């Protein structure tokens, strides 16, 4: 391992690191929004839409991100939708993550005890008020550990973006290996890059899970 090569590479990896973070951020944000919509539609059993989104969830969960990404990046332009590599990456992450986030929210919403819903009804809340004041605040806080786990999962999945040549961390490392043969140095920088993002997150996740097990509410 040649440390000066690692050092020289820092600015390049810094850029790649920021790209990984940026794409993760938009992908995860989009996935959370999609997940919320899907879980609400299914929770409130909105007719028709419920079935369509149910099909989306199955397609999203039962196919790999890589092929989803290829489809968006290569097949969509054939159908007339030209899309940049970064936009495909983010769209792919949203398509994949949306169903995982939906499952996380659904778990939380289902975890809200039935008596809470009934007592909300008993004081005359409308369905929307019930969602706003009772089900959502409680359900969302129950789903936090699962959401955190999905955040980690989705950040890791951004490594697949390399297949559409987005210069994120993995792609940058592969470039360095391919062009300069600095294999050890490139892999070292790559692992460090992900570790900086993922280790704090997974420590946070462990903490959240422990807190959830102890029951932060407890009636």
């Amino acid at each position: 391992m040649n440390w000066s090569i690692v050092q020289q590479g820092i600015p390049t990896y810094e850029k790649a690191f920021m790209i990984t973070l940026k794409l993760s951020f938009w992908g995860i944000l989009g996935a959370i929004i999609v997940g919320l919509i899907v879980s609400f539609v299914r929770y409130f059993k909105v007719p028709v839409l419920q079935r369509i989104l149910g099909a989306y969830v199955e397609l999203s969960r039962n196919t790999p991100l890589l092929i989803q990404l290829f489809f968006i990046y290569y097949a969509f332009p054939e159908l007339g939708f030209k899309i940049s590599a970064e936009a495909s990456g983010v769209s792919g992450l949203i398509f994949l993550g949306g169903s995982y986030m939906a499952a996380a929210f659904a778990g939380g919403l289902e975890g809200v005890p039935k008596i809470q819903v009934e007592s909300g009804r008993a004081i005359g809340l409308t369905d929307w008020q019930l969602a706003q004041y009772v089900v959502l605040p409680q359900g969302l806080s129950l789903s936090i550990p699962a959401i955190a786990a999905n955040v980690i999962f989705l950040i890791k999945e951004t490594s697949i973006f390399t297949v559409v040549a987005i210069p994120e961390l993995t792609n940058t490392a592969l470039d360095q290996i391919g062009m300069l043969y600095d294999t050890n140095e490139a892999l070292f920088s790559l692992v460090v890059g992900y570790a900086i993002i993922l280790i704090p997150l997974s420590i946070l996740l462990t903490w959240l899970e422990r807190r959830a097990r102890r029951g932060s509410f407890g009636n």
Partner: protein
Amino acid sequence: MAHSGINILFEGRNMVRLLGGLWISAKIAIVAIVVGLILGLILGALRTLHNPILRVILRLYLEFFRVIPTVVLLFLFYYILPQNFNINMGAESMAMLVFALWFAAEMSDIVRGGIISVSPHQVDAGKAIGLNRLQLYYYVLIPQSIQLMIPATINLVSRIIKTTSLLLLISVMDVINIGQQIIEANGQRYENGAFWVYGFIFILYFILCYPLSLWARHLERKEVVTANG
């Protein structure tokens, strides 16, 4: 005149090649699952022993495979083994190794979770009739927790099938890699070649994974019912 796109799948030996690619992915997945299952069971059981050093080591093993993206794991093994340890294996065997170790890591957590959920009274009862520790695991703990582990294991199998899509990255001739070649070779002559080829592969994966997820969900639901009943 470009041909209608769907025929790209059926021209020449294209379909046979695609399915051949799928078989490579399947072969790698099957080996990884079998090895990972056995190793995962052993490691999971070991993680329930009260040996702090073993626990820390196995936990680190799990976290290593869990924190690092699978793509990066593949490249670590792909580049580091031959260069630094002089171990040369084909890309396929290397993928089997990485996936098996990954599967074992995740499996060990499922097994551990299942075993520690068995009531401690069962352990006491087993000890009381004179079972030794191995017998305790074999006759009491594992049989009672296996039902709990099955849905999570099915989901893990489905995950590894989806992960085989990454084989492309280390130049294994998997279904996606072959799909790419077919598009490159025939793309000029067909409209929407990428749409049909990638769409076909998309559906192939779906056909493999969807039944698994239905099965896992069915078992989970059954479990809830028995637990309540």
